[in-house]
C-alpha cells in the first residue's frame, strides 16, 4: 500500500497533457505535487528496506533513529544536498538497478575550505577530486545551498541489483585538500 501513492500519481501522469507538457500551469503544479509526494513515500520505503538489510546503522537493533535514516537529495541536479553540506561525516549508498555490474562516478555537493577522506566498505582509501560548482549553477534562482564544490569519486563495480557504500569524512588536513583540489585554468581568448 505504501507504493500506491506513486503508482496512482504515475497513472494520472499518463494523461497526454502531462506527458507532453501541454497542461495549464496550475494543473502542472498539481502533477508535480502528486509526483513529489509519491516519490517521497517511496524513498521512505527504500530507506526502511535498507535498514532491514543492515545498510543503515542501528538497523539490527530495533530500527535506526530518524537522524540515521538515509536521505535522497532531489536537488543534486543543482549540486545541493543539506546532509552532505552540513555533516562532518556521512555515508554514500549507491543502488544499481541494472542486472549487471556497473561503475559510476558519484558527485557529492560539499562546501569548500576542507578536504574529504573517502573510504570504501573494505576500509580502502578511494581516490577523489574536488570540482568547483559552475558559477551559473551557484546563481540559479531559488538555490539555497552552501555547496560550492562537488566531491567526485568512482564507485567501481556496483553489483547487479545491489549496493555499494562509501564513508566520507571531512578533514581540515591541508595535504588532503591540496591533493583533491582540481587544477583550474582560465585560458585567454585570442580575440
Amino acid at each position, binding site marked *: 500500500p505504501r507504493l500506491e501513492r506513486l503508482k496512482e500519481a504515475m497513472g494520472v501522469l499518463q494523461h497526454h497533457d502531462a506527458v507532453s507538457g501541454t497542461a495549464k500551469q496550475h494543473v502542472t503544479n498539481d502533477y508535480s505535487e502528486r509526483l513529489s509526494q509519491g516519490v517521497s513515500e517511496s524513498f521512505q520505503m527504500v530507506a526502511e528496506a535498507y535498514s532491514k538489510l543492515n545498510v543503515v546503522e542501528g538497523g539490527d537493533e530495533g530500527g535506526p533513529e530518524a537522524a540515521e535514516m538515509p536521505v535522497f537529495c532531489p536537488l543534486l541536479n543543482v549540486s545541493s544536498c543539506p546532509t552532505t553540506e552540513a555533516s562532518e561525516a556521512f555515508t554514500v549508498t549507491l543502488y544499481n*538497478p541494472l542486472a549487471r555490474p556497473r561503475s559510476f562516478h558519484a558527485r557529492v555537493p560539499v562546501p569548500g575550505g576542507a578536504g574529504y577522506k573517502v573510504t570504501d566498505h573494505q576500509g580502502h582509501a578511494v581516490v577523489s577530486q574536488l570540482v568547483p560548482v559552475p558559477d551559473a549553477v551557484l546563481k540559479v534562482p531559488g538555490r539555497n545551498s552552501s555547496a560550492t564544490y562537488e566531491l567526485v569519486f568512482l564507485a567501481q563495480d556496483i553489483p547487479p541489483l545491489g549496493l555499494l557504500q562509501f564513508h566520507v569524512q571531512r578533514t581540515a588536513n591541508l595535504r588532503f585538500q591540496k591533493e583533491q583540489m*582540481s*587544477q583550474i585554468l582560465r585560458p585567454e*581568448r*585570442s580575440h
Partner: protein
Amino acid sequence: KDIEVNLGNQGLAVLLDKDTGLLKSIGVVRPDGITMVKVNQTYLWYAGMSGNNSQEEFRASGAYIFRPDGAHARPVAAAANVTIVQGPLVAEIHQVWTPWVSQVIRVYKEELTLEMEWLVGPIPINDGVGKEVVSRVVWPDISTNGTFYTDANGREMIKRVKNYRPTWQLHNVEPVAGNYYPVNSRLVISGGPDFQAALMNDRSQGGTSLDDGHMELMLHRRLLHDDAFGVGEPLNETAFGEGLVARGKLFLLHSDFANDDCDFGCLHRSLGEKLMLEPVVSFTATSKPAHAWR
C-alpha cells in the same frame, strides 16, 4: 592556437578553438596516438512565432506546436568564456555563452563518452520575443543525405528523411518544425562505413538534422503567446519572478569510440541502459569514523 584537454594516456581528448572557446574536435587517446575528429557544438535560439491565431498563418508557437519565426536559428553568442578544471578523475570545460546559457563539457578518465551538461534560463523576454533554445552538434565534411534516426516512444529506431514522409506526399511549409521529431533517448546519424554518431539525452526532447552532419535538440522554451490548441496559456513558466532554469545532460558518441569488444550499436545501447537506470544515490549522516563504520 587551440586548447587541448585530456586526462593522460587513455580516454577522450577534447580540442577547443582558442578564439571562440567552442568545441573543435574530439578524439580517442590510444597508446599509439590520438586520431582527432572535427566536431563543433554551440547553442542557438529560434524566435517563437507570435500571432493572434485568427488565421492559420498567424498561429503562434506554443506548448503544442513548435513554430519558429523564420527558418534559421540565431547563435546565443559567437563565443563562450572558458574555464578548464582538471584532476585525477575528471576534466571539465565550463563554458559560458550568456548569463542564461552555459555548459560543462565533461570527460571522465578512461571513459569514452563526451558529456555535455547544459544549463539554460531564465530565458530573457524583455525584447518581447519568445525564444526556443537548441544545442546543435555539427560534424563538418560529413554527408548524411538528409537522413537521421530517432527512437520513438519506446519503439524501435525510426529512419527520418528531411522533407519526406514514407507514406504520403509532403509539401513542407514549415522547413524547421516540419523536420522536428520526438527524441526519447537518442538521435543517430550515419555517413558511410567510417562515420556514425549518436547524441543521447536524459529526457524526451524534440530534435532534427537540418543539414549534412547536423544533430540538434531542443532544450528549453519560453514563449509569449498561446498556440490556440487548447492550453489557453502561453508557455511562459515563471518561478521566483523569473523564467524557469533547466539543467540536463547530453552525451555524444562517435563510431571511433568503438572497439573489438563493443561496436557502435553496443556503445549507445549500453549507455542508454545506464542513463535509463542510473544508480539510486542516498546519504546518511554518521558520527562514526571510517574504521568503526566498516
